[in-house]
Every structure is written in structure tokens, then in C-alpha cells.
């Protein structure tokens, strides 16, 4: 941790963070990378699951012949497609939490502790 010696500790061990320091952090490379890392994951993933869901709804509306094809016994394409939406939701949630834990949290925690302990956030 690159925590610099805190000059003055405010209440609860925190110094108030001035607007200038927020601005300085926002303009720092480290923060720009955090922002990029977040957006690089959540924007494409949101578009992907939305299109995947839209495909499912559109097929439900317009491709009923396809959706009612039986696959195993009475289990048809529509049911499998629906269950796959559950699977993809669980998987994306898991991917996101792993990505956030490994890639985003360490950077966010570092910037936060620098700011709250009176560092200038570089």
C-alpha cells in the first residue's frame, strides 16, 4: 500500500476530501484506468445480455414453430431457451463479481485509501 503518512486525521480517521483533490484524482491516470476497466466490462456485457434476451423475446413472438420443436420428450426449444436465460444470468453475475473482485476492487481500494488518508491521489 502506498499510504502516505496522514497529516491530520479527521473524525473517524478521515480527513475531509476537498473538491480540488477529487478533481485531481478524477484526472489521474490511475483513476482513468479504473473507469476504463469498469466500462470495458459492463458496457459490452450489458449490450450482450440485452441482445441475447431480446433475441429470446423476439423468437417467442415471431418464431413459434421453432420454439415448439421438441428436443427431449415434452421438453421443447422454448423451455431450453428460457432455462438458458437463467444460466446466462447466473454466469454473467458470477463473471462480473470475479472481474470486479480481481480487477476493479484493488485499484478502487488503493485510490480510496490514498484519498481518505490525506494523500493527494497523485
Amino acid at each position, binding site marked *: 500500500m502506498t499510504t502516505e503518512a496522514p497529516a491530520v486525521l479527521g473524525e473517524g480517521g478521515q480527513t475531509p*476530501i476537498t*473538491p480540488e483533490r*477529487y*478533481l485531481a*484524482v*478524477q484526472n489521474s491516470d490511475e*483513476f482513468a484506468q*479504473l*473507469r476504463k476497466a*469498469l*466500462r470495458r*466490462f*459492463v458496457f459490452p*456485457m*450489458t449490450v450482450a*445480455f*440485452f441482445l441475447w*434476451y*431480446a433475441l*429470446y*423475446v*423476439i423468437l*417467442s*413472438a*415471431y418464431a*413459434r414453430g421453432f*420454439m*415448439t420443436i*421438441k428436443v*427431449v*420428450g*415434452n*421438453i*421443447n426449444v*422454448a*423451455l431450453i431457451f*428460457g432455462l438458458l*436465460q*437463467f444460466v446466462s*444470468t*447466473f454466469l*454473467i*453475475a*458470477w463473471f*462480473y*463479481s470475479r472481474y*470486479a473482485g480481481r480487477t476493479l*476492487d484493488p485499484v*478502487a*481500494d488503493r*485510490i*480510496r485509501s490514498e*484519498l*481518505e488518508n490525506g494523500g493527494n491521489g497523485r
Partner: protein
Amino acid sequence: MRTVLAAAATNGTARTLTIILFLVFVAATLAITVWASRQTKTATDFYAGGRSFSGFQNGMAIGGDYMSAASFLGIAGMIALFGYDGFLYSIGFLVAWLVALMLVAELLRNSGKYTMADVLAFRMRQRPVRTAAAVSTITVSIFYLLAQMVGAGALVALLLGIREGSTFLGMTAETAKIATIILVGALMIIYVTVGGMKGTTYVQIVKAFLLMGGALLMTVMVLAHYKFNLSALLGDAAAASGKGEQFLGPGLRYGVEVPGDALQTFYNKMDLLSLGIALVLGTAGLPHILIRFYTVPSAKAARKSVLWAIGIIGVFYLFTLALGFGAAALVGSQAITEQDKAGNTAAPQLAQALGTDLLGGEIGGAALLAIIAAVAFATILAVVAGLTLASSSSLAHDLYANVIKGGQATEQQEVRVARIAAFVIGAVSIVLAIFAQNLNVAFLVALAFAVAASGNLPAILYSLFWKRFNTSGALWAIYGGLISAVVLVFFSPVVSGSPSAMFPDHDWQWFPLSNPGIISIPVGFLCGWIGTMLSQEKNTEKYAELEVRALTGAGAH
């Protein structure tokens, strides 16, 4: 005659048991509420449960807040009567959580304090934006609340087996409905005014466990009945429905194809797409869901709560599949529609059938029916309490403390106003629900989702991710989305001009879809953009604070 609830002896036993179980739930939750009130001292305690809940606890509470009677009884009933189309609803309700997880929960937790408006007004002019956010919060919550309360009244009459012409404790069906609405309203007022967010959260956690337990029990029983052969269950359900294989595919309820009417078929399919979009984008804009993210200590805990919520909600919707198809196969659509045309009693009827078959005759049937009916009541109470809390928080924290008092109110004043607001909102909802009890207001849930997706979500996303966004943009987004959704629904077939409308005897309908989302959501996003472009306002410093706080939690409450 298969498993008709009216079988007098069973009904009497089940009714007594239901009432006993319900009273046990009420007593337990009131005890929790009183305990919670002793722990509630500051404004943070009242609005955000002291931010002391764990990710797991909050995840369960989110489940308890989100899975309404419409989910439990409504979706099970829809699957029982219309087959596959009920499942479409569940999928939208679940997938929606990815928006909350990736784009909203953590950033909102870090940058806000008590209400949705804390984030929206962060870098804007406080008064206009907080007013708009409060208007939207209260509108969404009241719509949702009315649907739940009117539903509660009708449901209790059904679950207790009070029908037209018969009496219960000297009450006719009509009076029993009104009494139920008043009772539900009174309880939700007590939970919120006395217990605040802490009490409400525990009520929701208890309800989530009861609901999951009840649904799991019935699911296992249905599957055991079919020796865990899903295909056999589906086959039986399709055969019993009288609709054959069509029952297992989409199209009986949504996007119905009308032979010889290409235009109506087109509208029906557009309506399905419109509903789907609103379900997926609405969740992350529902104020009573958003304020739940403030009850945990950190953004990481907020993430964990959504992960738990996705788990519990996903599993629950898988259960409803078994419940719905189980009810179609084992109870049959005729027996269900005899009780309730919308199918809301399918799950309780299934409980009775399963209990009778597997737990030993009529007593077993009565016992399981009573348990499931009591779970349904608990479900309604937990949801209405969450809605009342969301709207009273917004009234007190946004309108009173920040708009009227200009941020100068003390914590004690704010909390006192929040308690009064909960009381007033509760009382107003009781009165409105009594007036609306014979109107078909089921569409209000879909409308609440549409408003949340059209007004709140664009404002939240722009606020968090778009540097240029400003006061004018926030006002345009919230009011544009809200007004377009409400106006379109007002002129849609769910309000007038159709036999199942709220006012079936009037006709001012010109908008062909029941769900406005496909128009109003793009309108909301577009309005937000236009409004932003029309103003030069820019608050660089506040945006730096908002963004750094949202992404790192530095300086978060």
C-alpha cells in the same frame, strides 16, 4: 369435482389454520418491529437500517421486497392457465437484475445516502431535481402499492373461501375485502413507522425464507408426484390444459395471433416486446429496490446482496415453473378459473391437492393450503411495507428536508416527518384501494415498471456515466419518461375501451398497446439527451466528486 376449495369441512379447517398461521406471522413480525424500533435512533437507522446488514441479509431482503404476490400467485397462475407465457414474465424479472448488478447497485451505494434523488441531484440544482425524483418515486410506489393492496383484498376473500353471498365472522365478501385492505394497510404503517428500515428489512427476510420454503416444499412434491420426470409433468399439464402442445410454447397469453386480423396480431406482438423491455429495464429504476442498497456498509456488500438476490430470485422462478405446470396438471384450468378467472388461486389450490394426495387426505390438504395461504399474506405485507418506506423516505428526505427546508432540517425532524409521511401514504393508499377494489388494476404493476424504466433509469444512468448531463437533462428525462408512460397507458386498452379495462364502459382508447415501454423508454432516454443539450450548466467539481466517490467509495456515507 376435483379439489374445489369450497369443500366445506376442509375449508373450515384450512381457514382456521390459515388465520392461526397468519396471526403467528403478524405477532412475530410485530415483535421484530418493536425490537427494531429500539435499535432505531438516527436518521441512518430509520432510512438505511444503520447500513448494518450483511450482503446475505440484504440479498434475502431484496428477494422479499421484489417477489410480490404478483410473482408468486400471479406467475404460477399465469403458467397454470396459459402455460409457457407465464415463464416469459419470470425471465424478464430475473434478467433485469444484471442491470442493477453491473450498472447501478455499487455506484448508487457509494454516491447516495438515503434515496434515489441523492444520486440524481448530486451535481444538479437540488430543488427541481429532488422534486422530480420525489414525484416519480411516489408515483411508481403508489401504483405498485395500489395493485398489491387491491390484490390483497381480493386474494384474502378467495383464500379464506369467502364468496359472494356467504359470510365470514358475519362479514360478506365485500366487507371482508375492505377489512383486509384496512388490515394490510394498518400493518404496513406499523412496520414502517415503528420499525423503519430495520423492521421492514427483517420482515422481508422472514418472508423470503417462508416463501422459498413454501415454494420448495410444493416443488418437491410436484416433482415427486411425477417421479422427478419433468417431461411427464409437462405432458400431463399440456394434456389437462386442453390446448395440447401449444400450451408448452409461447403465444397463448402474449403476442396472441388473431386469425384474419394482421394489424391486431402485429399490435399483440409489439405489446409482448414492449412488456419484455420494460421488465428488464424497470427493476433497476424501482425506488423501493434502490433504497435497499443503502442498508449495507460498502459497495462490495451491495454487490454481494445483488448476487444473493439473483440466486434466490432465479431459484424461486424455477420453482414457479413446477408450481404452474403442476397446478395445470393436478388441479386443472377449469377448477382454477372457477375460483379466480386470473388464476391467482392456482398455487393455493395446488397446495390443497398435493396435501390431500401426499400428506394424508383432507387434513393434509387443509394444512398445506393454510401454510401456502399464510405465505401469500406474508408476501403481500413485506412488499407493501417496502413500498411505503420508499415513498415516505422520499417525501421526508427529498421534499421536506431538501426542497422545503433547503437542507436545514435536523435528523429528528426528518425522521418525524418520514413517520408522518408513512402514515399519510398508508392512509391514502387504503382509501384509494377501497375505491379501486372492484376495478381491474392489475396493469398498475406493469405500469410501475414502465415508469421506472422510462423516467428513473435514464436519469440514473446518465447521472452516473455521462459527464455532460445536467439539471435540465435530469428534469426532462424524469418528467418525459414518467408523463409519456402514464399518458400512453391512460389511452391504452387497459384503461378504457376493452372488456377487461379498468373502465370497461368507457372508451377513450387510441394507443393500441397495453405496455407503453417500447415507446416511453426511448422517449425518456431521448428527452434526457435533449434536455441536457438545451442547457449550458456544468458542475465540474461536483461531477469529479460524484464519479470518484461512485467508483471508489471515497467519502461515501
